[in-house]
């Protein structure tokens, strides 16, 4: 009894989650590229990807649910399926963040261009790298790589905090620039959330591989 069909289903689940992850990564990339180029077309593409991401999320959930009900998975298999369900939800919300960012970029496009004291591309790069790395850890079942993602989150948080400070000051000093500054501020916050979701994904990978629930540990350490 080596449960060939079940193992194939687990592989399929992983496969589908990676396709979903591809869509989500693309959406994040496009929305931040759109920020740099103020490209409304890219923003539209991001918006259009949302239904597909949502559909994939539902399909993956259904497949995972079927496996739970029909195969009664145990131990590492059970943890894997739970991890997939949670990663799936986090990916979907990363997709939402991309859509939010695209919305802000569209709004920015209607406002006079100004140089803002915030390095959004750098923050975006970091947040996207966290997602990428967390997914890589998932693909390879590598808890140590996942652990490394957790460390990156502090950098993202720091950058976001810097953005709040400098953009806040800008709004005080030049209230006429407040609309642009607010958009950038919201984008910064969106990217910070992307980092949080990547952190969740990394924690789910660790839970799957090691069987230890590491969620909320950073809170305890604070």
């Amino acid at each position, binding site marked *: *009894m080596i*449960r060939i069909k079940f193992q194939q289903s687990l592989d399929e689940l992983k496969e589908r989650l990676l396709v979903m992850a591809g869509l989500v990564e693309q959406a994040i990339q496009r929305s931040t590229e759109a920020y740099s180029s103020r490209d409304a077309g890219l923003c539209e593409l991001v918006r259009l990807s949302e239904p597909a991401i949502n559909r994939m999320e539902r399909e993956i959930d259904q497949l995972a649910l079927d496996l739970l009900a029909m195969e*009664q998975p*145990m*131990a590492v298999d059970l943890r894997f399926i739970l991890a997939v369900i949670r990663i799936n939800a986090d990916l979907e919300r990363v997709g939402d963040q991309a859509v939010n960012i695209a919305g802000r970029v569209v709004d920015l496009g209607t406002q006079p261009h100004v140089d803002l004291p915030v390095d959004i591309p750098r923050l975006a790069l970091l947040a996207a790298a966290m997602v990428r790395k967390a997914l890589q850890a998932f693909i390879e079942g590598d808890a140590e790589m996942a652990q490394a993602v957790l460390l990156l989150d502090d950098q993202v948080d720091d950058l976001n905090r810097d953005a709040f400070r400098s953009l806040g000051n800008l709004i005080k000093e030049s209230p006429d620039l407040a609309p642009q500054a607010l958009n950038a501020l919201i984008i910064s916050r969106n990217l910070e959330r992307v980092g949080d979701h990547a952190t969740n994904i990394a924690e789910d990978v660790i839970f799957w591989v090691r*069987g*230890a629930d590491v969620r909320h540990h950073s809170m305890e350490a604070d």
Partner: protein
Amino acid sequence: MGVDIRVENLNAWYGAVHTLHDVNLRIPANHATALIGPSGCGKSTFVRCLNRMHETNPAARAEGKVMMGDVDIFKDATPVEIRRRVGMVFQRPNPFPTMSIYDNVASGLKLNGFRNKRVLDEVVERSLRQAALWDEVKDDLKKKSGASISGGQQQRLCIARALAVDPEVLLMDEPASALDPVSTAKIEDLIFKLKSQYTIVIVTHNMQQAARVAENTGFFLMGKLVEFAATTKIFTNPSDKRTEDYITGRFG
């Protein structure tokens, strides 16, 4: 009330075949403990050692120590005394086929010399109620034979028979594997109710069953106890790779 069972360096043989190797564990009182493992790994041998039934096979032998509460079952008690303290239920219901339902339940007591009809009536009713069978058979107690009721009812009758002598430990060797899901659920409900008063050890091939009824689970492999831990631990995050391979179905 149940008693703790402490097993130390238990070894068992059938002739020259060494079937249990240095088993050590503590089975807590008033809880259900599940034993799982592939066919032939020694689960039945293990539970049969706990009521000294293993030794009834002339070719068989056991060594080591089994403490039931304060009693060293190999030293301080005869097999008959142990059978009184330890009830056993088998995979296939084995009521006495020609005896009435009443006599099936009362058989243990009668064997021990009880004759008082009022006491026997009381014990029979209490045991059948405990086994959740009373309502189904109360009108046919002396009319129907042990063999004339359904398999699921027969298994509960065997449980009633085991409970009638007021044991401390209840050993169940795949008690539901020959039963349909409804009868199985009844047996599991029964285990759930009984475990506050008895020490229950249940052998099962049904992992979900172990997960549903038992607080602790032991995994046997080739005569060795590989892992013994809280059931939730065994089924979500076992420590031993062999346990994981077995429960996830990656074996062989």
